[in-house]
């Protein structure tokens, strides 16, 4: 299998107010292969979100290297990485522009990572495509193409974020607890949609989640983070043998120190 993303000894240290060093990521080595769907577990402060921030470039790393398809991209700007990496956040407000309409948001996403010119945006020409696309989600989003996204429900906004992120087939999809802020029913529907999209488009994906069932049900690989390190990295076979009880025991034991 081809390595898509390689993290080599990635370390992130931040200084507290009292000048003590706080190691958020501690020499993390991780290789993500094309087609991987990795679920990421870990308590609060384990370093999951910082790991994502390091990959997208929204936070710089203290030391270590990040390679995409073998190319060192450690010093690339976030805007440059955006052409390859898509991310959906936990907060529905994060992924969409609230004063712009659903169609306008999709149009922005359609040009992800491309050069934008001083030419008419061509919204009408894409409306039909967007309508079909939104229709496939099945929560009535297609009736709101001209609604500012700030007026949508959290579930609709998250499914729009997901559509926007997967519209241009990113090389790597990062899901940061993207169903956590939704009610159980909406959350389940979005998770099903997510899985369906990943399979259809054969995306490589990492998904942070606090729902153990989801971590077990979805994906072909599972990693557990603790204190800035990857404590456990299970492949498909190992993951298949894992039960929910195993996972709870593992999580409780590993996470004692970091538990809230």
């Amino acid at each position, binding site marked *: 299998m081809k390595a898509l993303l390689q993290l080599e000894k990635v370390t992130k240290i931040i200084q507290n107010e009292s000048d003590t060093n706080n190691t958020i990521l501690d020499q993390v080595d991780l290789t993500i292969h094309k087609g991987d769907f990795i679920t990421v577990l870990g308590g609060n402060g384990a370093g999951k979100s910082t790991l994502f921030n390091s990959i997208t470039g929204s936070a710089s790393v203290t030391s270590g290297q990040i390679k995409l398809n073998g190319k060192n991209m450690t010093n690339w700007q976030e805007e440059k990485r955006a052409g390859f990496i898509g991310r959906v956040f936990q907060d529905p407000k994060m992924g969409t522009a609230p004063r712009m309409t659903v169609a306008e948001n999709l149009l*922005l996403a359609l040009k992800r990572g491309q050069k934008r010119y001083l030419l008419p945006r061509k919204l009408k020409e894409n409306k039909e495509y967007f309508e079909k696309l939104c229709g496939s989600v099945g929560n009535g989003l297609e009736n709101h193409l001209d609604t500012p996204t700030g007026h949508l429900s959290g579930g609709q906004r998250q499914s729009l974020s997901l559509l926007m992120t997967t519209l241009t087939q990113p090389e790597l999809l990062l899901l940061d607890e993207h169903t956590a802020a939704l009610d159980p029913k909406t959350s389940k529907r979005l998770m099903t949609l997510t899985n369906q999209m990943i399979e259809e488009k054969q995306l490589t994906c990492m998904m942070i989640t606090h729902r153990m069932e989801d971590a077990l049900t979805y994906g072909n690989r599972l990693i557990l983070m603790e204190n800035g390190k990857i404590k456990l990295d299970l492949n498909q076979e190992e993951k298949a043998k894992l039960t929910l009880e195993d996972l709870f025991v593992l999580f409780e034991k590993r996470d004692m120190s970091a538990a809230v």
Partner: protein
Amino acid sequence: MLISAIAQGFLWAILGIGIFTTYRILKFPDLTVEGSFPLGSAVAVTAIVSGINPVLATILAIIAGMGAGLVTSLLYTKGKVPVILSGILVMSGLHSVMLFVMQRPNLSLLNQPRIYDAFNALPNYFDVVIVGIGVLILVISSILFFFYTSVGQAYIATGDNESMARSLGIQTDNMKILGLVLSNGIFALSGALVAQSNGYADVNGGTGVIVIGLASLIIAEVMFKEVTLGERLLTIVIGSVLYQLLILGVIRLGFDTTYIRIFSSTILAVFLMTPQLRKGLKLDMFSGKEESV
């Protein structure tokens, strides 16, 4: 007097529209305006006095204003100086630039050509009205064209949700630079036109202009809610004219024009507080709708 107030309203509306493109779209309170507006006046008047065609002089003023905006935007994006401070620094520094340009604190356009001269045959102030309308049509249609291009959409997205914009590969710093450069060009244009209408430029001509610009925008927003982008730009023109009429009313009531600024500020303050006042009084003056409790 009435026509004069309307004419002034058109010229100041250009300023209000410029403020809208940064203050509302990018959510930047850009104080450079108090420097780039009089800079526009200074450059245009100096150029005309030294024999340059008024239209060309006005274009020179726009370029000077864009330069000021560029400095503010670079301080902010590259130098990481907070945007308000960047604006204050440039605004303050421009005072010296204006003195250097004019070589004196103020300069008169007495017996000099002006951009309004082509419509000299019209009655008093109508020349300003005609030029004002022409420039407004030009400015509004260019801004609208820009907003609906791919770059314009990226610009709006930058102000709306910057982290999302970056995650889509939009160079948000470049958008901020673009916004500050263009809006300060618009401020200088407004300054150049106002100076040619007043007949002089003054290094202190910028004091309080942000209040006048904001007033036209806030009046427009209080009176007309939920409008499209294009309608918003037009309502700013209405807001600006209304503001000039309010000031005219204040003067007509016999208040001393020496203290005009406190009336400007009071008018703006009242409009800014209107949403809060409406809530308190449980009535909606303009739409007649009862606020639901």
